[in-house]
Every structure is written in C-alpha cells, then in structure tokens.
C-alpha cells in the first residue's frame, strides 16, 4: 500500500534520521491512549503524555546527534561544499564580513510514503529532516516535556485534567508533524491541528464566557491567516507543479524566468498566514487574549510552538519568500516581512509598558520577539532568526512558567502585578533567580542571556545588509525590551508586597480561583470583542447561580491554600531551573562574539541557495557594532528601574501616600504639589514619551482600531449576513420563488371570471375564439 519514496536517502543516513517520522507518531498515539484510557489511569493520563514526550525527546535527540554527525562528516568530505558556492559569490553585499569559510551543504534526509495521489498531484507523507527541522524537533520535544511535567502540578485537580493532557499532547504532535513535513499538505495538517488544540487549550476553562471567546478569537484570527496559507499553497502548486517542500525550495531558489508576480503573490499569501499564526501586526491581537488559557498553555504556545509556526514557515520556505519578496536585492530597502516584523517589534514593546497583568507583559514581549524573528528573516538574517527561535523558546518558556509559579503559590492566583505582587524575590528565590536570568536573556545582556547572541545577530545583519531602518528599529526595540522587563521585574519582585502576595484578598471581587481572575483580565480586553452583548449578563448570572462548589479551581481540590508566598513544588521548580540554565547556555551554540558558529554550521543548508537566491552570510561580530544596542539596553534598564521605583514604590499606595502627604500639605502646599507633580512627572515622562504617544496610542489603536476592526469585521460580517439573509435571501430570492407561486395563483384568480357559469358567455367564448382563429389564419394564409 505504501510505496517507498523516491527521494534520495543517503545509504547511511542513520536510524534516527530515517525514523524521525516516529517523533510525531508517538504523541499522536499517546493522544488516543489518553482519550480512551486516560481517565482510568492513576494519574489521569498525564503519564501517557509525559512518556510520549520523553520518547519523542529521545528520538529527537538521537536525530539531532545523527544530524550533527552527518553535517560533520559532510564538512570533512568537503565535496558537497561547492553547492554553497553561490553563496559567497554574491552580490557583494557584506561578503567581506563573511565568516571564515562557507559551511558545507548537507542534503536533507527525506523519508516519504505516498499518502494519496489524485489527478496529477501526488501527496506524500513522511519526514524531511534538515538542520532547521532538527532544531525545532528538539526544541518542541524538550519544551513540551517540561511543560507537561510542570502541568502535573499546576492543573492538578482540574476537572478536565485528562482532557488537558490530551490536548497538550496532540498539540505537540501537531507541531512536530508540521516541523517534519516534507510537503505543504502535511505542513498544513500539523498547522491546523495546532490551531485546533490552541482552541481547546485556550478555552480550557470554557465555562467562563471570556475564555470561550478568547479561544474563539485565537482560532478565528489564525484562521483568517490560514486563508493565505491555502491560497499560497495553491499558487505554489501552480507555479511549481509540486507540493514537496524540498522541490519547491529548489525551484524557487533557481527561479529565473517564471511568473515572478505569481511567486510574489504566493509569498505574500503565505506570509499572511504567518502574520496570523505568529501574532504579527496587525493580527497580533489574539495573542494577549490567549492568556486566558492555563499558564502552561501560554508557555507552550508562546515559546516553542504555535506562534513560531509562522516564523518557521518563512524559514522553511525561505527561497520562496526570499525570491518572491526580493529580500537582499540591491535597491530594495524594505520588504514586506521586514516591515511587518519591524512594526511588530515596536508596537508590541510599547504595549508591554502599560500592562498590569504579568502574563500580558510576557505576551506582548513574545509578539515583539516574534517581530524580531520576522524582521531577521526579512533582512536576510536567516540564521539569526532561527537561532532566536531557539533561544527565545527557553527563556520565554521559563518566564511564563515563572509567572505561573508566582500565581500558583505566590500571588493568590492573580496575575495582576500592581495589585497582587511585589517583594516576592525573598519569598520565591528559585522563581526569582530563574526570572532574572531569563529576563537577562530576553533583554539581550551579553553572556548572561542567550538572547544577546541571537538578537544581536539579527540587528547586525540588518545593518550590514543595508537595512538601516530596521537596524534602528532593532536597537530601539532592544532598549524598550529592557525597559519594560525591568518595570515588570520591579513590580513583581521588588517593592512592597501587595494584595495576593501579601496574602490579602480583595473582598468579594476576588474569587479564589485562578481561572476567574484570568477571566476578568481577559474580560477587559474582550469588552469590545463581544459579538452579542446580551448574552453576557445571562451567562454570568448563570455562573453565579450555580456556585463554585464544583468549580474547576486548580488547587483547591488538591491542597489548602498556602499561607504565604513560597516556591512551588518540585514539578514546577525543576523545569524552571532547567529552563533557567538553558536560557543562559543555549546562546553559546552560536556566539559570534566568541567566534562560535556551530549552530549556523548545522542549519546552514536549510536556507536554500540558487541562481535566483543569494543570502548574504551573517556579518562578523564586532563589539563596536553591538555597542549602540547594548547602550540602549543599559539605558532602558537604568531608566526604567529608576522610574519604576519612583512611581510604583509610592504611587501604588495612594491612600497611605496621601495620608503621609496630608500633613505636609497643611504646611506647604507647594511642596506637596511638587511632590505630587513629580510623581506625575515621572508617570508623564514615561507616558508622554514612551507609553502615551506610542503605547497608549498603539493600545488604543489596538483595542479600538485593530481589535475593533477585527470585531467590527466580525460584527459587520454578522450584520451583512443578517442583511443578506433577511432582504436578499428571504426577501428577494425566496420572494421571487414565492412570488411566482403567488403570481400563478393570482393569474388563476384573474382567469376565474371567464368561468362565469353562464352558458351564453361560454358559447360566445367558443365561437369568438373560433372566429378569431379563423380570421387570423385565413389572413395569414391567403
């Protein structure tokens, strides 16, 4: 039934490389095991999930090792290096800065079976292993494993514990399927499975309307982008007559005299899918809402899976985008990918400043970092972008898990930094350390954080590849990142303990239940997203009515609320520590600053090269080039810390602050005013120069224009639907039909008087008709 694929398979490619297709199969099987047997297992099916992820991880590791072997042996062989020659003999841009030697070209290991063939289209299924795929495989398997372990504690006692693990496992399976995909069909398969699982996971606590709506929004927004994926795939098929990714890349890289417009169209269409999936401007609005899901889900979604799928697609089909969008062509100072990525970097970073919800800060941070990756791909820094996927996964996952850890045992299940956090660094040391390390990585602090190496390469490439605008965007973004992360760090870990962190529950406003808080947080963002407002009160009423006794509070069933903030159980801390360590060291796999180009070496062949495609090699690292960025980072940290301390240190206690200042008020109004003015000045400095013009406006635009647009589009769609239905369908089209019936009956009525029942009338009719007929026919015929 299955025909062995014809793709060239190196005779000794290695067992793992050839059996990489098992990697997604294992979690997929586990998914069904969990669905069918999970409830009966002692640990509710989580053991299947974790075991499968471990299995996948082992296989992925094996694959990675064999891939490394393969690259190394190819490097020694040397004869394959000539494939990459075109790379060096480029257009003269930045060639001088090229690293010592061109890495060898290594063929991907492809193992495919015919899935189905229809018409003249053959679709295969299997695995397509190269450096890029290996990177993501390892990453996904690894992060998924950790997140699953973390989740065993985090969602313990949840009423849909088993479902949760099933979804997580399927989610990973989907991502792995996509990563391995040898052709576009399998790619879409994995892509959409992820979309489905994100829907299930974000809406995990679907009893709350906002969660359900967030899930809907996530799926729907991504689906809007998917339109591009379908259309773009169609265009690729038309252009190249195949859907095999390897062939497409080859043909695109050597695209000489085909329909260039169509290729550009395909690239744009595909990129729209990436915009939706990777939360790029202007379709990023679903991402913060998606925080409605349980924190491990946010962590998984935002680090290694789902959102990087879009970036992965661009990286995977890089020749299509590179050629289609004229990246690295002389005279092309901007291109769509870079522009979208750049805009995303800035607006998301700006937005991160005004968030109170720690997860939302991280969410916008993710958006911003994804913007970096896109921008990197847009300026030709393929390696930097892919490496940024790699490093970002570790530290972002760590950050989210930290946030979860804080909420779990630190802040009384709240994510509100202003209300429920502060001063936690003493009480949650492990979390704190991991957070600090990961934040450093995110900020791009040299040597402490892995983010430095990857981000810096993107920024440098922008500069050396003559994309000056994006170089500026990059360093400003780096500064902003540093600043908002400092603010978040300060709010969370420093200053006075507030609210939940101080073990103070705000009366009735707070239910003892994480989901509810998350729900409220999301509800804010969702205010405009309601397709139908009328249902809200209804749903809430129903919710209140049925009480909380059987609710899904993650912890309450398991153990009593801890008395004071403290680090969580080992299931949470161990993954945190591992991730924290990796957040530091992962960067050293490719540290141009230290002359390490190992990662580039391993993945280089995945970029693709050909007569129509010349990607400049990464520039040589110089501290001078990195200096502006580092300077801005430092400024960002310093300024932000200073301002945060000033603003939040006092301003968060307006009552106390006021009473303290009420007495001086009697003596010197002016002094108070000044003091007060100072507070506001700080606020206003930030707000005016950073937050207000940029963030507030962006947020406003975001909420009212973009989000509003999304919702308005939804509403408009619904209204159009109603209009079409009411007036056109039921009125016109149907009306014509019904009308014709009425007409027929009416005509019958009109005819009835003829049938008067009078014989004389009948006779007249009889003879009259005959006479008329005779007259006409006689006239006609004579």
């Amino acid at each position, binding site marked *: 039934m299955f025909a062995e694929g014809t793709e060239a398979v190196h005779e000794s490619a290695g067992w793992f490389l050839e059996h990489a297709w098992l990697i997604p199969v294992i979690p997929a099987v586990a998914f069904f095991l969990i669905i069918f047997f999970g409830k009966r297992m002692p640990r509710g099916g989580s053991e299947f999930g974790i075991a499968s992820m471990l299995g996948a991880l082992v296989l992925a590791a094996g694959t990675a090792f064999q891939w490394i072997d393969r690259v190394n042996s190819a490097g020694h062989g040397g004869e394959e290096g000539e494939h990459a020659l075109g790379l060096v003999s480029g257009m003269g841009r930045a060639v001088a800065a090229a690293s010592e030697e061109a890495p060898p070209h290594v063929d991907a290991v492809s193992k495919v079976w015919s899935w189905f063939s229809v018409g003249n289209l053959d679709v295969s299924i299997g695995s397509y292993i190269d450096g890029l795929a290996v990177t993501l495989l390892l990453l996904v398997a690894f992060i998924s494993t950790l997140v699953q372990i973390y989740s065993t504690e985090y969602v313990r006692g949840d009423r849909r514990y088993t479902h949760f693990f099933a979804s997580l496992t399927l989610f990973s399976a989907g991502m792995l399927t996509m990563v391995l995909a040898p052709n576009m069909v399998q790619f879409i398969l994995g892509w959409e499975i992820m979309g489905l699982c994100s829907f299930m996971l974000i809406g995990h606590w679907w009893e709350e309307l906002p969660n359900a709506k967030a899930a809907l929004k996530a799926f729907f927004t991504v689906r809007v982008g998917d339109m591009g994926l379908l259309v773009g795939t169609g265009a690729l098929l038309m252009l190249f007559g195949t859907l095999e990714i390897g062939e497409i890349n080859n043909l695109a890289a050597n695209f000489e005299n085909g329909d260039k417009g169509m290729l550009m169209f395909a690239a744009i269409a595909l990129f729209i899918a990436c915009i939706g999936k990777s939360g790029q401007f202007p379709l990023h609005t679903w991402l913060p809402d998606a925080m409605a899901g349980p924190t491990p889900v946010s962590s998984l979604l935002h680090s290694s899976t789902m959102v990087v799928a879009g970036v992965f697609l661009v990286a995977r089909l890089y020749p299509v985008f590179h050629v289609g969008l004229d990246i690295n062509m002389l005279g092309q100072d901007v291109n769509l990918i870079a522009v979208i990525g750049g805009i995303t970097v800035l607006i998301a970073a700006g937005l991160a400043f005004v968030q109170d919800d720690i997860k939302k800060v991280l969410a916008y941070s993710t958006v911003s970092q994804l913007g970096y990756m896109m921008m990197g791909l847009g300026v030709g820094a393929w390696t930097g972008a892919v490496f940024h996927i790699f490093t970002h996964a570790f530290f972002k996952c760590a950050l989210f898990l930290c946030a979860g850890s804080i909420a779990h045992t630190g802040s009384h299940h709240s994510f509100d930094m202003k209300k429920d956090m502060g001063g936690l660094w003493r009480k949650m040391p492990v979390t704190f350390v991991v957070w600090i390390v990961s934040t450093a990585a995110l900020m791009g602090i040299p040597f402490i954080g892995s983010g430095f190496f990857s981000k810096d390469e993107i920024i440098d490439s922008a500069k050396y590849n003559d994309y000056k605008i994006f170089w500026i965007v990059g360093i400003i973004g780096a500064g902003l990142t540093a600043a908002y992360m400092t603010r978040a760090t300060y709010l969370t870990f420093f200053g006075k303990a507030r609210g939940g962190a101080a073990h103070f529950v705000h009366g009735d406003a707070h239910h003892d239940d994480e989901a509810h808080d998350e729900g409220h947080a999301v509800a804010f963002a969702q205010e405009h997203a309601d397709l139908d407002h009328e249902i809200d009160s209804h749903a809430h009423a129903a919710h209140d009515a049925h009480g909380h006794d059987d609710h899904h509070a993650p912890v309450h069933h398991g153990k009593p609320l801890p008395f004071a903030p403290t680090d969580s159980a080992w299931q949470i801390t161990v993954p945190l520590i591992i991730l924290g360590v990796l957040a530091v060291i992962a960067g050293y796999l490719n540290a141009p600053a230290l002359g390490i180009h190992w990662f580039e070496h391993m993945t280089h062949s995945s970029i693709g090269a050909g007569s129509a495609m010349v990607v400049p090699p990464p520039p040589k690292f110089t501290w001078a080039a990195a200096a502006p960025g580092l300077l801005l980072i430092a400024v960002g940290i310093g300024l932000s810390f200073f301002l945060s301390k000033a603003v939040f240190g006092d301003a968060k206690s307006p009552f106390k602050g006021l009473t303290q200042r009420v007495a001086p008020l009697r003596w010197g109004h002016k002094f108070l005013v000044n003091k007060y003015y100072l507070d506001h000045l700080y606020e206003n400095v930030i707000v005016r120069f950073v937050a207000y013009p940029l963030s507030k406006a962006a947020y406003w635009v975001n909420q009212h224009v973009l989000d509003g647009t999304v919702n308005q589009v939804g509403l408009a769609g619904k209204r159009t639907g109603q209009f079409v239905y009411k007036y056109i369908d039921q009125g016109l089209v149907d009306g014509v039909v019904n009308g014709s*019936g009425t007409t*027929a009956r009416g005509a*019958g009525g009109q005819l009835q008087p003829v*049938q008067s029942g009078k014989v004389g009338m009948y*006779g007249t009719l009889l003879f009259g*008709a*005959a006479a008329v*007929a005779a007259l006409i*026919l006689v006239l006609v015929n*004579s």
Partner: protein
Amino acid sequence: MLSLLAQVADFKAPHVDYHALAPEIVMAVGLCAVLLVDLFVPDHKRWITGTLTGFVLIGAFIPVATLAVVGDDMRALFDGRYIVDEFALALKGLFLLSAYVVVLMSSNEMEEGHYYQGEYYVLLLSSVLGMVMMASSRDLISVFVALEFLSIPAYMMAAWRKRDSKSNEAGVKYYLLGVFASAVLLYGMSLMYGLASSTRLTDVGQALTLEGDKVGMQVLAIVFVIVGFAFKVSAVPFHTWAPDTYQGAPTPVTAFLSVASKAAGFTGLLAMVYLAFPMAHDVYQPFMWVLAALTMTVGNLLALKQTNIVRMLAYSSVSQGGFILMPLAVAGTGEAAGPALKAVVVYLLIYAATNLGAFAVVIAVARKTRSGEISSFGGLFNYAPGLAVMMTIFLASLAGIPPLGGWYAKFGAFRAVVEAGGGWGYTIAIVGAINAVIATAYYITVMREMWMKPAPDGDETPVRVPSPIVVAIALCGIGTMVMGVLPGAVARFGDLADLTFAFGG
C-alpha cells in the same frame, strides 16, 4: 329513373369482415340485451344490468384482443371508410377497459342512489359504442355519427341526478355547448366536403392543400373542425363546460367524460390531423400550438384555485389535455409524426388509467365524507392509508413523477416536440415543463391534505370500500405503476409508430 334502377340492380352487398366488426356487433347486441333485461328484472335485482354491462364490455374486448393477436395488417371496410388497425384496436381496448372501470365505479353509486340503473348502463354502452366506432371511422360521416353517438348519451348521463339542480345544470351546459360545437364542426365538415367532393378523410386530405383560390374556405373548414374536436377534448378556450359539467355530474360519469369521452375526442382529432390535414400543417399547427399552450397554462392556473376535488380534477384534465395536444402542435408530418402519434396514444392510455384511479378514490372517500371538498381528504392517511397511498400514486402519476405512468406519458410528449425541434418545438417544450411544475402544486395540495392534515371533523373511522371500487382502484393502480416501470412492455402499443402508415398517410 331507369338508370337509378340499373344502379340498384348493380348494387352488390359490400364485403363485411365480421371479425373486424365483432366488437361493435357484440356491443350492439349487448346493448339490446341490457335493455331487455332491464325490462324484465324486478327493481331489487337491477344490479344485474350493471354486471351484464360489464360482461358485454369484456365480451367486446375479446375480439379486440383476438384482432390484435391475429391482425398484422389493417382491415379496411366499406371502401376504406371504416378501418380496423392497431391504432383503432388500441383505442378500442382503451375505451372498453375504461368503460369497464367506470361500470365498476358506478355500480354502488347507482344502486345506492336509486337511479335508473338499466337506462344508465344502456346509455353508457351506447356511448362506448360510439367511441369504439370513432376509433375506426375514416370518413366525415362516420366520424360525425360516431361523435354524436358517443355524445348524446353522455349529455343525458351528465344530468343523471334528476333532482339535483347542479346535475341538471351540468347536463344542460354540456348539451347546449356540445350541440353548438357539433354544429360548428358540421359546418366545417360541409365545407370540406365541398372542397374534396368526397367524405373520405384521405380524399379530404388531398384537397386541403392550402393552394388554389379557395384557401380561405379551406382554412375556415379546418378551423371549424378543430374547434368541434377541441370542444370535445375541452381545450382552452373551448373548455368552459368541463369544470361545471364535471362537478355537477355524478362522479362516475365525470370519470367517464374526463377519460373516455376525451380520449374519443382525441381519436377523432388524430384521424383528422393525420388523414385530413397533413398538407395543411401551416394552418393547424399554429392553431394547435396556441391551443396546447393555452390549455396547459389556463387549466393549471385555474386548477390552483380550486377547493373542490372534482372541479380541481376537471381543470387538471383540461391541462392534461394541453399536454396531449402538445405533440400535435408541432408534429403530424415529417420525422416527428410517428413519435407524436405514439406520444398521444400512450398518453391517452396512461392518463386513462391514472385519472380513472383518482376518480375511483374520490368516489370511495366521498362515500364516507359526503363531500367534494379537498379539505375533506384531511387525515386520510391516518384512517385509510391504502386509499391515501393509492391516491398519492395517481396524483403523482398525473404530475408526471417517475416511476409512475404519468412520467412516461409526459416524456413521450416532450420527446415528440423536442424531436420536431425548431423554435416552436422547444418553446412549447419549455412551456410544458413549466406547466408540469405548476400542475404539481395542486396535485400536491391534495397529498398534503391526506398526509399532513388532520381529519376535518375528527372522524377517523376507517372507510369501507365496496369491492367493485377496490377492483377498480387496483386495476388502475397496477396499470399506472406497470406503465411507469415497464412502459415498453405494455402490450404492443410500443409499436404504434407503424400506425402512421396504417392510416395510409
């Protein structure tokens, strides 16, 4: 005077083929027998007349059958003025069987209504005899005589419920308009005779060439003759009598009129079209086209409005008449002549079975509900599922839904007009197709009553259907279904194409 005598002396009795005439003879004898029996049986045994009539009809059918089996060529009698061929036999069979079903339907009606049974059957038989003669007539005189023979008893039967003013009205309207139409027809025939100097249809056909200096007269003759038959087949605008008469007449009579009488009208029309007008198609075809289109459309539109089931069926039969006319509107000569003739005959056969069945169900239901309103059919499916299903079958067949007979009838008609082709052919086909849909609307109204509405008075006691009516319904039902599923297998009527030649055309 001498010469006249000399002619008498030369007179030789014509050769009479008694086998060919056997059906007519059997009927004539039977007619007398029924009349006599009626005189001598006591009142409470008058049902014997009905039974006897049935036997007479079957007896007359036997020679029809034997002729069909034996005869592979046509038998011309009386100098070609009376011809027995397959066409004639098919229609004779149709008339006899229809009449038999009508007898089955009538027996209880007549018996329980205390009508003059003997006379009724005698009239029925004579009318059928007229029809049987019509099928063979190939001469103006015999056509006319047959037409009157079948009509005059029918006038009386329509008025059979003497004390019911509606029945009287039905009879009088039918009579007056019928006679008037006959008179017009006769005038046309007289002109034809003047043109052809012969009453034989084939001779007339030679004369009506639409050439020479008497074109106006020819046209007038053709139009008047067609009008006469159009009245008989109740084509619009000569249909006005039909609804009133159908509604007023006793239901079995209505069934008889709407099926047998109409078929007889078409028989005469066919004879005229194929033998007398073949060269005048420029005149009769446009006329027929207009008639067909009008008949289908007006009949349908008026039927939509009806609330009385019989009146609805009356208009329905008007519109069905339009479908039967349709092939004649474009055919009659050339390639399409054969299919058109076939289509008409097959249509008549299938229509007879279906329509009679529908009337039989109406009679059966009316025995319980005592109402002719469509709404009285409400809930029939609940208390008399058999009747409801049969009625559904008949109505669906009338609507032309496969696999019931009606579809094949319509198919044949459409095929004939499409085969004739040309703008006129396709246009009438489209008109017909649209009308087929409109027709469905009112048939389905009845189905809806039966299946989906509750009984109007809530009375759901089962209907007791007398066995003759059961037999009638069963015969019609089987006929309808068999002709739908295996239309090709219905005896030899499939080969009617040869008939065109049998006419000598």
